[in-house]
């Protein structure tokens, strides 16, 4: 298991390779990317910031919880901070297991927990030049994903 907060572009293939092992028959990954629309507004980019020490602690805790909840799973997660353009990856999670159900479930667990408790924030930049902090607690559930 490993978690990191990084300032460089993410590499999903590298994380898939990191959890690969001949005892694993199933590997899943999740890539979260900056989308061009949010809550009906046209987005041009996103700034991610973090309380880095705490975010790293929480992310490591979540990855460890995933491996404890799905015994045999190997999980790695990297979250990027800084200014990201449209389509760039903000988070990548890779999870491997002997079998596919826990590989999927471990990956899903990490992204759901990450969104609940890792102190990372994002400010959207809109095509009209304005910007706003994203507050998932203030949005309709439909608009709050991913």
């Amino acid at each position, binding site marked *: 298991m490993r978690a990191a907060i990084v300032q460089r572009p993410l590499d999903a293939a590298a994380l898939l390779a990191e959890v690969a092992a001949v005892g694993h028959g199933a590997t899943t990954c999740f890539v*979260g990317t900056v989308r061009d629309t949010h809550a009906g507004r046209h987005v041009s980019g996103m700034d*991610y*910031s*973090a*309380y880095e*020490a*705490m*975010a790293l*602690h929480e992310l490591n805790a979540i990855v460890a919880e995933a491996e404890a909840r799905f015994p045999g799973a190997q999980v790695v997660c990297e*979250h990027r901070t800084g200014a990201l353009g449209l389509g760039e990856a*903000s*988070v990548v999670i890779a999870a491997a297991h002997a079998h596919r159900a826990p590989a999927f479930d471990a990956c899903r667990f990490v*992204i759901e927990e*990450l*969104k*609940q*408790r*890792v*102190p*990372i*924030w*994002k*400010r959207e930049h809109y095509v009209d030049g304005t910007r706003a*902090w*994203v*507050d*998932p*607690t*203030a949005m309709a559930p439909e608009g709050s994903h*991913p």
Partner: protein
Amino acid sequence: MPVRVLLFASYAEALGRDEVAFDPADEATIADVLAHLRTLPGADRLPPRPLVAVNARYATVTDAIRSGDEIAIIPPVAGG
């Protein structure tokens, strides 16, 4: 000796700074930190009960604080 109070994202923007020093009385709690913050310009944009952390771990407002602690006021998280 004062504690550091860290502000992030929309809260840092609201108060116009990302760190505040606060010199706690004996037996002070995080609630006292928040009460102090609410005397500062822009603090009306903080919610009634923000998430808080002490030394990079989630905490509750009734938790005691100690000299040298790093307190953080945590806006709604939006990672991923």
